[in-house]
């Protein structure tokens, strides 16, 4: 601290509002040169908005950004890059058909006199960058589409650091990586730190923070809560500051196990090549069973097969003791199974249709008068759903695209609860949903279970799994790795099952 310049990047009292939402409410951030600084917070805490503000996408309403001690403003993302802040976005932004080198130097290729790309120079520069991450063997003229997802991400990072940034921002960089690949990423970030590049690391996986970061800032509901040296804190400190309230409040009261009814969903020996194998489990009436596991453990794939969206190679699915044919979602719905997809925008909702059209999309046959649609009945059902699920809208004819994430999710959940399912599979039911709507959604799920529906809860959010489930099934590598009763489950016990390496491939 003896140097005059302590922080390479400093954000002071950043405020950013959107109509009706105060996304950032006086956020402070201090990043030292050559360190990795983690940014944690729940969905909707404002991490992304902060990142977009630092990356020049949003302009703050008030507050200052200091870069190397000097106040700066960014007129555009390009301007932010030019001044030394590069962002590696969550979605890969690479052009698959173009070469590694062309992707790294997209739009900044070295050119000669006639504006033609100087290919050899570009390849050489790409080679130098690849060497930085031990990828000397990779030919920079390879098309990106031939690389693994992990290597594609490396290219994405190289693309970002090819502009010589002083700060590199990474948003959920491990979300599609295996554990081994994530470890390699952490090593690469450490190398960047050694070269004096600071990193801002946004992640949901709290355990990662302790592996990769030197310091951490915690955000909650658009507010900056505190920052700390990672060595001074533990995971519990992070969670309690992120959530800011006791978890019992938002998850409601867990019913006693003897209130559960008979088995509603019985899955035996379900297999699908390269996705999952020998999956068997049961869900009882009134029970919420959490499915935990790492990304790629096969949970969503199992859900798709049970719902008939994909065809399993073998296995049986029984609903209320009756075997159902796993041919199509249509048949699953007829048998009383509902599935709330993890990807509500591209697979769940009809974004350009209005609320009422979305609410009845999966049960048009219930609203007919002879061969015709019964618009009055639809209006009534829609009005009731809007009231029941507290969907914030003035009219049932508002386009769903214009609703917030939380309200969109309520519409989708309303549609599925509307079929009065015997079994409801909810896949990441609160992804991208703010904390208020989240606790409401937990309430609706608990009520639905109370009416006798069996609920399969797939979630990557461990606190959600621990808080809402009556029982926790853990999957790993396409198999069920084990089961933990909710009252004895801890984050450690679930994670250790999800990551344990001593599974011998047999039945759990």
């Amino acid at each position, binding site marked *: 601290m003896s140097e005059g310049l302590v922080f390479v990047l400093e954000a002071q009292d950043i405020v950013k509002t959107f109509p009706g939402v105060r996304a950032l409410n006086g956020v402070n951030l201090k990043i030292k040169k050559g360190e990795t600084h983690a940014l944690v917070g729940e969905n909707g805490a404002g991490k992304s908005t902060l990142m977009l503000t630092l990356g020049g996408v949003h302009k703050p309403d008030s507050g200052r950004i200091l870069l190397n001690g000097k106040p700066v403003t960014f007129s555009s993302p390009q301007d932010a890059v030019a001044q030394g802040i590069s962002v590696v976005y969550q979605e890969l932004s690479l052009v698959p058909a173009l070469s590694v080198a062309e992707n790294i130097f997209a739009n900044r290729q070295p050119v000669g006199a006639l504006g033609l790309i100087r290919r050899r120079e570009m390849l050489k520069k790409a080679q130098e960058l690849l060497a930085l991450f031990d990828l000397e063997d990779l030919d920079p003229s390879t098309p990106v589409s031939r690389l693994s997802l992990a290597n594609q991400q490396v290219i994405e990072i190289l693309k970002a650091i090819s502009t010589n940034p002083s700060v590199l921002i990474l948003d959920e960089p491990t979300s599609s990586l295996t554990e081994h690949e994530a470890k390699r990423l952490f090593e690469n970030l450490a190398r960047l730190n050694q070269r004096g590049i600071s990193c801002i690391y946004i992640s949901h996986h709290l355990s990662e923070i302790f592996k990769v970061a030197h310091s951490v800032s915690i955000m909650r509901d658009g507010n900056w809560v505190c920052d700390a040296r990672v060595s001074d804190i533990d995971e519990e400190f992070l969670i309690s500051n992120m959530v800011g309230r006791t978890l019992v409040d938002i998850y409601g009261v867990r019913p006693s196990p003897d209130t559960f009814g008979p088995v509603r969903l019985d899955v035996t020996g379900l297999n699908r090549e390269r996705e999952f194998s020998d999956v068997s489990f049961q869900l009882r009436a009134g029970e919420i069973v959490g499915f935990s596991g790492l990304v790629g453990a096969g949970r969503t794939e199992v859900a798709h097969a049970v719902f008939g969206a994909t065809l399993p190679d073998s296995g049986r699915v029984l609903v209320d003791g009756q075997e159902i044919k796993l041919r199509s979602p249509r048949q699953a719905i007829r048998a009383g199974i509902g599935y709330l997809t993890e990807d509500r925008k591209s*697979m769940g909702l009809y974004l350009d249709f209005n609320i009422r059209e979305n609410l009845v*999309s999966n049960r*048009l046959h219930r609203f007919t008068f002879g061969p015709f649609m019964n618009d009055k009945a639809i209006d009534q059902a829609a009005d009731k759903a809007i009231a029941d699920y507290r969907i914030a809208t003035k009219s049932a004819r508002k386009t769903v695209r214009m609703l917030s994430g939380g309200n969109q999710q309520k519409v989708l959940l309303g549609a599925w609860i509307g079929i009065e399912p015997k079994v409801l599979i909810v896949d990441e039911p609160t992804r991208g949903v703010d904390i208020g709507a989240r606790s409401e959604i937990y309430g609706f799920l608990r009520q639905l279970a109370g009416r006798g529906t069996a609920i399969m809860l797939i979630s990557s959010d461990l606190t959600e799994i621990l808080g809402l489930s009556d029982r926790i099934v853990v999957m790993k590598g396409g198999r069920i790795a084990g089961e933990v009763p909710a009252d004895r489950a801890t984050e450690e016990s679930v994670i250790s099952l999800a990551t344990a390496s001593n599974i011998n491939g047999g039945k759990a």
Partner: protein
Amino acid sequence: MNWLKNLTRQREFMIAVIVAAIAVTMSFSSPYFLYPENLMALLLGLSIEAIIAVAMTHLMVSGGFDMSVGSIVAFTGSATALLLVSGIPVVVAVVLGLLVGAAIGLFNGFIIAKVGINPFVTTLASLSLFRGLTLILTQGKNISGLPADFNVIGQFRLFDVQTPILIALVLIVLGDTVLRRSRFFRQSYYIGGNEKAARLSGIPVDRMKILAYVLTGLFAALAGIVMVARLGAASTTSGTGLELRVITAVIIGGASLQGGQGTVLGAFLGSLLMGLITNALTLLGVDVYWQTFVIGATLLLAVLIDRYGKLRTEKMELRGMNK
């Protein structure tokens, strides 16, 4: 007054107003415009494309697209004519002709829905395939000398209204009602709105998509047969460029290439608007070469207005739901 506001927001209303405006202007500018002969000729001229537009609207609502309708018109028309001149009874020949159209639709639909080839590419191939087959089948010759009780299909008049117009009007009324109100066809809007979501909503996506192509083939065959009956002869070049006129009418009428929107009434009004513009330019003595140009301009204008509406929505969205 709410219903009035809603009405003015409908695309159909907008086109109807434009159609009415042109009609009123024309009735003052040209003494011939309001002659029943002129109006009947106008309707007769667009009846063939209007018949196909009914099915094309449904297809485009479901997110599909068919470039091959003009070739289906020629192929089924020629095939039916060949059957007739070889002495096959009228009813049998017509039914076979319709079945051939439906079969071509099935062919298109199967390749698109089950094999997963893009609709544009698939039906572009069909456009050449069936135009080619028409030429092979007829050796490039027109077929005439059709039985009189076949020609009735296209030449009979009820209160001075010729059958192609009657057939088109009946199908338009029926098609509009069914597409607007029936549960079965409502499913197509969901498929066009978001195909993946529709599948997860339990809508039989592949079946509906294939059906949409079958119906389009069937309607194109009907149009082809009606046209042959009206002219009393089958021409190998009939229906050339028809697909573009039909698709233009459907888009002017409020459908989009993405699917999820559009109505039969809108498509008919779109077709009427195009016919009216052509008619007006002719009556006003404008150089005939301008007609195609004006149709293009109308299409562009219609989608630009649509885009403007979307942009406004997007801006509202940006202001409303940023996180």
